């Protein structure tokens, strides 16, 4: 039975591996990294994956189609360049508040979660920031309050989910109900007027002809893009959402990061609360109704995978803009908002179907299906 024993045979021809982290020739590294940088430079609109780029191109195509439909249906308006410019600003302004919420939502979804409480957090932050007591501290006090309330509620969500091990859907659903309840309690179900002119001016102020709200949206989107694509925080987000077990075994603190994601979403809601208060010059417990659905829908049609691990900030922004363009399209044609909602529903389904087909063709191209279907 000599053949049953293992035969350790040497293969001395193969060179031994170099030591781990050997002294690397600096010149060599410089050349290599230079080559890597040039070949890996990203265009601003695509994020870090080629798939994302193609999807975002598709979304821009959808936008173009919507504009053409608008131009054809109301050529009388579209023939006036001044009106087109104003209308574009109207659309962007319409997108600004939900857009800020969607950036936070995109992080949560890429990280493998969901936040159903964003609308309620916006309402609670707005109501808390407009109480008589808070308003007595002036604009700074109101902004500080909105941000802290949003952040704190997000942290509570995060603690419930990461350390309390609640399912995100359940935890944030509970927070949706509870935060709206608290908002109604604080405001005594009344509409609270904002008497602070600085806050109220945020919505009406224009810089270089563009509303301040649009600048705020642009700033949040830019910060979100950098955070997702250029920082370790973004890298962890993708890892935690794409494969939480792999992230954990690689030494990433998955729980802490999950908490931070919900805190980030809450902070975005706080920013949105200020913008919304400025637009309405008031706040009430029922404000920002169904923002959670708008934000989730925008992220999804923007190509964010609901199961986590994939998504782009620019895609989500395009998703929000597509929705507000549709709203605008119906408004300028004098159509009902009911018909509008039906179209939005159809667009969500169509977007997901198109993405599935795209994804399937990509995986087929990579030969993955050959392995699984054999």
């Amino acid at each position, binding site marked *: 039975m000599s053949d049953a024993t293992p035969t350790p045979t040497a293969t001395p021809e193969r060179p031994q*591996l170099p030591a781990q982290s050997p002294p690397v020739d600096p010149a060599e590294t410089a050349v290599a990294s230079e080559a*890597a940088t040039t070949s890996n430079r990203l265009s601003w609109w695509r994020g870090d994956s080629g798939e994302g780029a193609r999807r975002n191109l598709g979304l821009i195509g959808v936008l173009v189609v919507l504009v053409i439909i608008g131009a054809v249906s109301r050529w009388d308006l579209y023939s006036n360049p001044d009106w087109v410019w104003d209308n574009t600003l109207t659309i962007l302004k319409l997108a600004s508040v939900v857009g800020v919420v969607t950036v936070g939502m995109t992080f949560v979804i890429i990280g493998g979660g969901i936040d159903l409480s964003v609308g309620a957090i916006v309402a609670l932050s707005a109501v808390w920031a407009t109480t008589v007591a808070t308003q007595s501290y002036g604009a700074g006090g109101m902004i500080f309050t909105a941000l802290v309330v949003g952040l704190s509620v997000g942290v509570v969500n995060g603690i419930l989910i990461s350390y309390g091990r609640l399912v995100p859907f359940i935890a944030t659903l509970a927070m949706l109900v509870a935060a709206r309840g608290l908002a109604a309690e604080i405001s005594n179900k009344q509409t609270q007027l904002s008497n602070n002119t600085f806050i109220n001016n945020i919505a009406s102020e224009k810089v270089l002809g563009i509303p301040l709200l649009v600048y705020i949206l642009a700033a949040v989107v830019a910060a979100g893009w950098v955070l997702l694509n250029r920082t370790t925080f973004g890298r962890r987000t993708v890892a935690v959402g794409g494969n939480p077990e792999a992230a954990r*075994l690689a030494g990433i603190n998955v729980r802490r990061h999950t908490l931070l994601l919900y805190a980030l979403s809450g902070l975005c809601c706080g920013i949105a609360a200020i913008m919304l208060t400025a637009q309405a010059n008031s706040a009430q417990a029922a404000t920002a109704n169904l923002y959670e659905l708008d934000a989730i829908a925008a992220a999804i049609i923007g190509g964010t995978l609901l199961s986590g*691990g994939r998504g782009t900030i620019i895609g989500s922004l395009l998703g929000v803009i597509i929705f507000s363009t549709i709203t605008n399209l119906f408004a300028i044609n004098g159509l009902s908002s009911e018909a509008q909602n039906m179209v939005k529903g159809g667009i969500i389904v169509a977007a997901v179907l198109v993405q599935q087909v795209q994804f399937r063709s990509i995986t087929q191209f990579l030969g*993955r299906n050959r392995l699984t279907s054999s």
Partner: protein
Amino acid sequence: MNLRSPGAKPTVSEEETVAQPEENAAVAGASLVEAPADTVAGEVVLRLTDVVKTFPGVRALDGVQLEVRAGEVHCLLGQNGAGKSTLIKVLAGVHQPDSGLIEWRGEPTTFANPQAAMRAGIATIYQELDLVEDLSVGENAFLGHEPRRLGFVRRGQMVRRTRQILGRLGHGDIHPKRMVRALPAAGKQIVSMARALSHEARLIIMDEPSAVLAHDEVGNLFRIIRELTAQGIAVIYISHRLEEIREIGDRVTVLKDGRTTAANLPARDTPTRDLVSRMTGRSIEYVFPERPAAGPAGAELLQVEGLTRAGEFADVSLDVRAGEIVGIAGLVGSGRSELLETIYGARRADAGTVRMAGRALRAGVGAAVRAGMGMAPEERKSQALLLGEPIYRNVTLSTFSRYARFGFTNVAAEQAEANRIADDLELRPRDVRRPVRTLSGGNQQKVVVGRWLLGDTKLLLLDEPTRGVDIGARAELYQVIRGLAAQGVGVLLVSSEVPEVLGLADRVLVMREGRVVREAPAGELDENTVLDLVMAGSLMEGAPA
């Protein structure tokens, strides 16, 4: 070498036994032994001739012969990777063979899908039972073929028939309306068998049925199997435990590397030595790098004392020195993967301590990684990789923060480091920006191991590092592991392939049922001894009747 056992004399009814092709016997290195006809009298219900099944890169079945008679318990024996699982799936209609003949009750057949196999009367009871936990016992037994009228399930009839079947199995005590979730593992297994009988199965395949059972429940399982076979039902029984095969089996077919190396051996009196040699006689030579001449022992690196997790492993103590490869041999379910994950901090220990370089570790993976541990887990795809992400991001998954400045990632530096690793490990394809999904199993494993070559890993935990890796890439991985040890990294290696542990490790621990049963330098053990220790020590006590 005469492997023909004295108890197995060739008998007169040769025409009933499966015809073995000459070349297969030649490869096996010995003639095949046939069973005495008096032990099995039933007609042949299933006959496989030269069945071949290939997957990309692997010949999972490479000429399998099998003959099963009505009313017998036919045991399948083979090491991990011998092709048992694939064979089961071919019989259950999950896979279709590439070539070869399956005769079912005398008719050449192929099963297009599991439903077809089920309808023909072949039922499979998988190791992880495929029951719906939140349906009742009766609903599970008749899942997919509920008795019905006008589209409505006839609940009364279903309950009645389930009760009847459970009675046949000697388990009238299980109520058909009970939720399956509430049943213990043994009870769930009974429900699986009830489902098989509800299909009027003539052949029941049981994949390691005893693995989920406590010791005293196995006796009950055997009683049921005997009752089934008394009713003329054939059973294919798969188990790693030789003493079970001796007790319940009639005949044994041995598989090795996708081939039948022995068919229809009598289960009770074939010497264990013969069975083991049929399982292990290798046709593939593994190439292991040379061990360094015993140099000065490295510094004490990992010390584990009395580590225990209830139900998984108990009182495990071991140590790994710098530059040493320690291998753990054991079957799936012996607690080895759980042990590794507990050392790594991914599971919480019930008792015991883990020390790195003399300092006790706090709980959690983070502390282990900071102390210099790295792990390549058992399930590469689900536990280690972000499949859609580029190779370099997978390589730097645990180190990307080191290259970052003020929280901003440094992609250029990451790619440069990943390129260096890719060169060291001869990664193919070489482009580190490709998604990991596009790599072969062996190259994916290199990415996982490569992750821990960055940074300052002092101890590498490897769980089944060569599973699903082809022969060529295996040799490369062995070189990588040995190379790491030569640089002073300690390696703790788990594998169910005994030759791998023996060929690669300096020191070997054998685990069985959650305990370390033997520790010795690799040179003092051979494959048969280890296999025997792993398989409940039946060799030592001789072959029980």
